[in-house]
C-alpha cells in the first residue's frame, strides 16, 4: 500500500466509475490498469469487432478474439485481471442522441477513440455534464495527453481546437500506422491521471498538454489556458447542445456492409471497373506510400491522401472514380471532399483493400 494513496485513497478508487470510450490501442492499457488497480466500475464503449491488424497494439484482445465484439473480448480480459471489478459493456456508437445518457452514470470519462467526430462529441458531453475528460491521442510515433475539465478550472478540447478540422486538411484516420507500443505509453499516462483524480492525489495534467515523441524519446509539456472565447466552455458559449459530425473515420462493421452508403460501391464493382476499361472508371488507391508498398491492387491509380492538395489537378471532375483505402473510411472522406468540389461520379469502395483481399486475394498482406 502506497502511503500517498492509503486505505482512504484505495477506497476512493474502488468507488470510482470510469467510462472508457474506445477499446482499442489507448483503451487497452487504460482499462487493464484501471481494472488491476481495483477501480469500482468500468464501462467499455466500442462498436467494433476485433481484427487481426488490431493485435499489434490492442492488448485487450488476442488471436482467439478475432471477429468477436471488442466489448466482449475486453470484458473477458478485465475479469481475468480482476474479477471484483464491475464491467459494463456498451456495444454502440456514441452519438449526439445517446452521449449524455451514456456518460451521466460515470464519474470520469477517458477518451481513447480514433476519430475526431467522437472526440468532439465526448468533449462536448463531458463539459455539459461537468465530468473530467482524460484525453489521449496518437499519430505514428507521437502522442498527446491532457485532462480537460472546465469545472475544475482547466480548459476543454475546444479551447485547444475550437472546431473539427476541415475534411482533407488532416489525415484524420491514423490508419497509416502507429508504433504498437505508442498507445501503451499514452494510455498509461491517461490511466495514471484517472487514478490520481479518483484517489485525489498529486497534480492533475490540467491546463497542460503532454506531447510525447517516441523517435526522439522526448516529452514536452505545453501550457494551455482556458479560452474565454471557447465556443463551448467560454464566457459566451455558442454550443449549448450536442451535434454529430460526419463519421468519416468510422469503419463499417460487417453487418453494415449489406446496407451500403449511397456513395459506396462494392469490391465486385471495383473489380468490374478494373477488368473493363470501356466502363471508363478509374480506380484510385488513396492510402499512404508505406501501405501501398506493402500491398496494392494492380492497375489502380496511386494518389495518397497526404498528397491530394498538391495533385488535385490530376483528377478530372467529369471522370468516374472508385476510390479505395484500407477499410473504407478515408476513401469515403475523399469522396465527400471531391463531391463538394464538383465531382459527379465518385464512389468509395466499401471495406477497402481489406474487403478486396477477403474477396479476391486471401494471400494479400493486410496492413
Amino acid at each position, binding site marked *: 500500500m502506497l502511503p500517498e494513496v492509503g486505505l482512504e485513497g484505495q477506497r476512493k478508487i474502488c468507488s470510482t466509475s470510469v467510462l472508457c470510450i*474506445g477499446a482499442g490501442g489507448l483503451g487497452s492499457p487504460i482499462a487493464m490498469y484501471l481494472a488491476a488497480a481495483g477501480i469500482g466500475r468500468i464501462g467499455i464503449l466500442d462498436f467494433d469487432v476485433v481484427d487481426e491488424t488490431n493485435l499489434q497494439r490492442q492488448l485487450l484482445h488476442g488471436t482467439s478474439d478475432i471477429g468477436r465484439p471488442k466489448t466482449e473480448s475486453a470484458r473477458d480480459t478485465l475479469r481475468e485481471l480482476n474479477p471484483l471489478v464491475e464491467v459494463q459493456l456498451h456495444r454502440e456508437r456514441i452519438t449526439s442522441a445517446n452521449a449524455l445518457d451514456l456518460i451521466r452514470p460515470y464519474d470520469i470519462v477517458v477518451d481513447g477513440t480514433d476519430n475526431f467526430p467522437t472526440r468532439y462529441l465526448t468533449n462536448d458531453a463531458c463539459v455539459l455534464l461537468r465530468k473530467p475528460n482524460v484525453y489521449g491521442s496518437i499519430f505514428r510515433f507521437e502522442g498527446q495527453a491532457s485532462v480537460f475539465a472546465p469545472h475544475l478550472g482547466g480548459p476543454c478540447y475546444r479551447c485547444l*481546437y475550437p472546431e473539427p478540422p476541415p475534411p482533407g486538411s488532416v489525415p484524420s484516420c491514423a490508419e497509416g500506422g502507429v508504433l504498437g507500443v505508442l498507445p501503451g505509453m499514452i494510455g498509461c499516462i491517461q490511466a495514471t491521471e484517472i487514478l490520481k483524480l479518483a484517489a485525489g492525489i498529486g497534480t492533475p495534467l490540467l491546463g497542460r498538454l503532454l506531447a510525447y515523441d517516441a523517435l526522439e524519446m522526448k516529452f514536452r509539456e505545453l501550457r494551455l489556458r482556458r479560452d474565454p472565447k471557447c465556443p463551448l466552455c467560454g464566457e459566451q458559449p455558442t454550443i449549448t447542445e450536442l451535434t454529430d459530425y460526419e463519421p468519416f473515420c468510422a469503419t463499417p462493421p460487417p453487418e453494415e456492409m449489406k446496407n451500403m452508403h449511397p456513395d459506396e460501391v462494392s469490391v465486385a464493382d471495383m473489380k468490374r471497373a478494373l477488368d473493363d476499361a470501356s466502363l471508363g472508371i478509374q480506380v484510385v488507391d488513396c492510402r499512404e506510400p508505406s501501405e501501398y508498398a506493402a500491398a496494392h491492387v494492380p492497375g489502380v491509380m496511386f494518389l495518397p491522401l497526404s498528397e491530394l492538395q498538391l495533385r488535385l489537378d490530376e483528377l478530372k471532375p467529369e471522370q468516374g472514380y472508385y476510390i479505395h483505402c484500407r477499410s473504407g473510411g478515408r476513401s469515403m472522406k475523399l469522396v465527400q471532399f471531391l463531391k463538394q468540389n464538383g465531382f459527379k461520379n465518385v464512389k468509395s469502395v466499401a471495406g477497402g483493400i481489406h474487403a478486396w483481399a477477403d474477396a479476391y486475394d486471401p494471400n494479400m498482406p493486410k496492413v
Partner: protein
Amino acid sequence: MIMRILFFAQLKDGAGCSSFELPAPAPMNAEQLWIALLKQFPALADHRPAVRLAKNSEYVGPEAMFADGDEVALIPPVSGG
C-alpha cells in the same frame, strides 16, 4: 536573430523535417510568421487552418508576437487511438 520552429505529427511530412531555424530580423505576429513559414514550406498551407501555435511551451492565440530566441511549436490535431 533566429527563431526555432518545431513541427509536430503530420507537419513533419509537410515540412520534410522536424525542426527549422527561421531568420527573425524583427518581431512578427502570427500572420507574418505564417507568411515566412509558407515561403519556406508551401506544403504546410493545407494544414494551417487546423494548426495551433505554441511559443516557448505555451499555446498562444492569434494576437501573439514572436521574436528572436523564441521556440515556436506548430501542433496539428491528431486523432489516432
